[in-house]
Every structure is written in structure tokens, then in C-alpha cells.
């Protein structure tokens, strides 16, 4: 097996008495597309925060191609090739759509004019090119979602973490976003996606990690994980009348 691109080992994070992540370990091979599922509060977003350097774990470590990310600032982690989107969308409201994406493009490209060109190309890929000169604050939620994706892509990451790509997006836009994610994967990008839409996740992911109360409770191909009784229980609660632990 190829060396892991990302390696998460024994990550634990507590917020006061709440355990957000408990001894979470997994590897991501280059070119993989991994789905992260779990009910609300399972610790999915916290895990993203830890991988991207926005939050430091209490224990455990994150390695990118063997390099420890502990203590690195989020911008350093990003420049090492880890991109992300936010669950709660965070466009730069005062900038235009193309300027938003240019900020991403300018990470690798040091020339403003070329960055603009690249930004327009990325906008075309996500289907936002006709909105290029609109202010980001005028976009709908679905458009903002695509803007956020475009911005992250423009920085040309090697590993991209997507927090709820289809959440809050109207039904008609979902197939487009799904095929976009598939395209990115086919072109060699490694992705971890948090997703609540099971149909989406089973359609695109090769491997799924299920998180519950901060711990990984199941891991494997979509068909196996979604039928795992622990996963079903985590989502639906215990079977009525069943014994409590």
C-alpha cells in the first residue's frame, strides 16, 4: 500500500467536559475519496478543525506525508496543501466573487493578473462564471457553497476537506455538485467529505468513516457501513425496548 497522504493518530479533543474526539485514528491514501458521517455533534467538524490547524488536539497527532502538523498555524497547513470549506459559509462579503477566488489563487500564483485568469477558470468549473463581478454578499446559499468550493480549489490543494457540500443547497443543484466532486477525485485530488445526504455519500465515496460521540464506530465501503447496526443505532437511537448500556 502506498504511504498515507494524511495520517490521523489517536486524536482526542475535549471542550470542558464534552469529548468531541476520542482516540480517532485513520489514514488517507493519495487519491482517496473518503466520506465522514455521523449524527449532529459526533465530532466531524472538530476533526476538520484539528486537521486544518484551526484547533489543536489534546492528544494524538496529525501527519501530512509524515510531517507533523502539530502547532502549525492554519495558514501554514493550507500552504502545505490542505484546503477546506466551512460548514458555516464564510465568503469575503465585501469582495466580488472573482476577487474571493483570487485570494485562493494568489496562494500559489504571485501575479495578480494571472490569478484573476485562474480564478475565472475555476469559477467556470463550478458554474459561477456569470456571477464573477457580483459582490459575494448578493449570492444565494447554493451559489455561496460553490463559491467556497471554488475558492478552496483555486489554492490548488492536494487534500481537500469539504464540510457539507450539499447542505442547504436546492435539490436541482445537488447532481452538479456531486459530479464536480467526482471530477475532482478523478483528476487525482484526495478528498474527505462530511455529508448528511446518504444518497450522495454512497454514490461518490469508496470508504466511509462513521463517527459517533467522538469515536469512530464503523469504517469501510458505503454498503457495509450504512448497514452496520451501530451506525443505524447512532442515527436512529436504540431500538425501542432494547437494553440500555
Amino acid at each position, binding site marked *: 500500500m502506498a504511504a498515507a497522504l494524511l495520517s490521523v493518530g489517536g486524536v482526542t479533543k475535549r471542550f470542558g467536559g464534552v469529548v468531541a474526539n476520542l482516540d480517532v485514528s485513520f489514514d488517507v491514501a493519495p487519491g482517496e475519496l473518503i466520506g465522514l458521517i455521523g449524527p449532529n455533534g459526533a465530532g466531524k467538524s472538530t476533526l476538520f478543525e484539528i486537521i*486544518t490547524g*484551526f484547533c489543536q488536539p489534546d492528544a494524538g497527532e496529525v501527519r501530512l506525508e509524515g510531517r507533523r502538523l502539530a502547532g502549525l*498555524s*492554519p*495558514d501554514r497547513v*493550507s*500552504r502545505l496543501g490542505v*484546503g*477546506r470549506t*466551512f460548514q458555516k459559509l*464564510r*465568503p*469575503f*462579503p*465585501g*469582495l466580488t466573487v472573482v*476577487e474571493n477566488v*483570487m*485570494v*485562493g489563487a*494568489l*496562494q500559489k500564483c*504571485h*501575479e*495578480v493578473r494571472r*490569478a484573476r485568469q485562474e480564478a475565472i477558470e475555476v469559477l467556470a468549473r463550478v458554474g459561477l462564471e456569470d456571477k464573477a463581478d457580483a459582490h459575494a454578499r448578493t449570492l444565494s446559499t447554493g451559489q455561496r457553497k460553490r463559491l467556497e468550493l471554488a*475558492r*478552496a480549489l483555486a*489554492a490548488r490543494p492536494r487534500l481537500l476537506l469539504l464540510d457539507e457540500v450539499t447542505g442547504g443547497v436546492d435539490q436541482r443543484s445537488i447532481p452538479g455538485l456531486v459530479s464536480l466532486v467526482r471530477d475532482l477525485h478523478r483528476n487525482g485530488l484526495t478528498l474527505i467529505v462530511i455529508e448528511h445526504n446518504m444518497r450522495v455519500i454512497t454514490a461518490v465515496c469508496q470508504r466511509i468513516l462513521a463517527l459517533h460521540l467522538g469515536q469512530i464506530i464503523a469504517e469501510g465501503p458505503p454498503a457495509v457501513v450504512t448497514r452496520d447496526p451501530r451506525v443505524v443505532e447512532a442515527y436512529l437511537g436504540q431500538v425501542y425496548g432494547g437494553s440500555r448500556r
Partner: protein
Amino acid sequence: MRRTDLGAIVLFGAAALAPLVVRNAFLLDALILILLWGSLAVAWNVAGGYAGQVSLGHSAFFGLGAYAAALLGTRWDVSPWIGLIVGVALSTGAGLALGYLSNRLRGPYFVLATIAFSQVLLIVASRWRAFTQGSEGIPVPFRPGVWTLGFSDKTPWVYIMLALAVFAYLVQRYLEVSRLGYLLAAVREDEDAAQALGVPSRWLKVAAVAVSAALASVGGTLWAQYVGFVDPFYVFSVDLSVRFALAAIIGGVGTALGPFLGSILITTLETYLRATFGGIGAGFIGIYLIIYGTLLILVVRFVPEGLAGGLAARLVRRAPSTPA
């Protein structure tokens, strides 16, 4: 060429021609102050407008610049040009320290820290009698010559302030079109999102505050040499900091021409008020605070994007009706 550059050429061009036509010292004095306060509003704008690090303590850097040159000149007979450079060095250092604080304190807490910083300097300058002559202040002796910045005429001052203003304007334009400018805008709009895209926000904020401080210091040095007196209670005052911020806010936060438009309005108003009410008594001069307040409310209510922004929006709206 952008519209703002056209405006700048008209504005600075008019200022350059003014001394050739205008001989009235009162008007030239107003022009000098407009350019100076405009440049100081720019200094504020670099940190507050472009980088989003709002300060109400920029008089600290203004005062450092004023004191550096005045002390070096009166105590060791050093040229104010050297004093200017020393002031810039001191202010850049102080700006780096304050900028570093901006990574610990966000929003209102940073604002409070900047106010506190300027007030600490005020206390030092007004109490350290042996070195700064305390609250008496320092008169800057008049010595004719370019090297000593002593001129019997206002004309050289117009060109010195104009050079500062043009430089300040160009700094802002650089911040609008350069890679650095885009990254800074991202930090201002949403720091976390900027970091997620690899923008080194901590470093950029510190650098922006330091550049802003250096610029304010140059303004302070030149002001002290022009006016000929350094009074700690004036140069380190919150009033002065507010004036820098106000000129930039009224003119248009984060716009290149805005600080100068704001300065024209505020400086003219103040000069007029001083000429009208100046003789009646110090108490009545406070009326400018009421007028500033009213002005600020009017601007925020009717042209929240500032004079420069409001003007631009109006021109754009009109654009389609004009024949191509």
C-alpha cells in the same frame, strides 16, 4: 487608469498649482493642513480601512514623530530629516508591538489597547520633565534652510506636504491592486477564511499596523516642524486620533481618495470654526465636537460608504446614460 486616479490627479494637481496663483497665507495654511491631515487619515486607513485593524490611538505615532525630531533638534542640534527617520524607526517598532497585540485582541479590545497606548505615551511625555520638558512642551527653533526645515514662506511647505500626500496615496493604491492588497482585504473580510486559503494573516496585520504607524510618524514630524511647537496634550490626544479616523470614515473607509476628501471637509470646517469662534473662549471651541458628531451621523446615515464611495456609486449609476 481608474477613476480614483483621475480624482487624485485633479486634487494633487490643483494643490501643486495653488502656490503659483494663491498668495494668501491663510488659504495656503489651510491647503497645507488639508494635505497633512489627509495623509494622516491615510495612515489610519492603511491599518483601519485596508487591514481592518481599527485604532483610536494613532496620535501615539504622530506624537512619537513630533517628539523625535523636536528633541533631537533642540538637544543635539540634529536635522529634522534625521529626526523624521528616527521617528519612523521608533513608530515602526511601536507599531510592530501594537500589531502583535492585534493577534491577541480582536475588535473593541484592540481599539482600547490603542487608546491606552497613546495615553501611556502622553503620561511619559508630560511627566518626564528632565527629558521632554513635561507639559510645557517643546518650542522648535526656527532655523532657515531646507536641511533644518525652516522656511519664511509657505510655498515649500505646500510641496513637502504634497509629496507626503502623493506618497501616502500611492501606498494605498498599491494596497488595492497588488497581491498583498488582496490578501490584506481577505484578512479584513474574514480572518479565518483567509487563513484557510493560506493567507499569513498574523504577519500581515502586524505589517499593516507598522506601515500605518511609520506613515503617521512622518506626519507628526512634519507637523511639529511646520507649526513650531510640540505640546504633549495635543500630539498624544485622543481627539487627534479620532480626527484621523473620522476623516477616513467620512471620506470612505478603504478607499484611496477618501481620506483626502474627508480631510478637505474636516479641515475646512475646523479652520472656519476656529476663525469664527476662536476669539470667544476655549469653552465654545468645543462646538466642533458637536459638529463632528453630527457630521458622522449624517455620513453614516446617508453615505455609509463615505464620500469617495458615494461619489463613485453616483457616477456609476449615471454612466449608462452618457453616450459612449
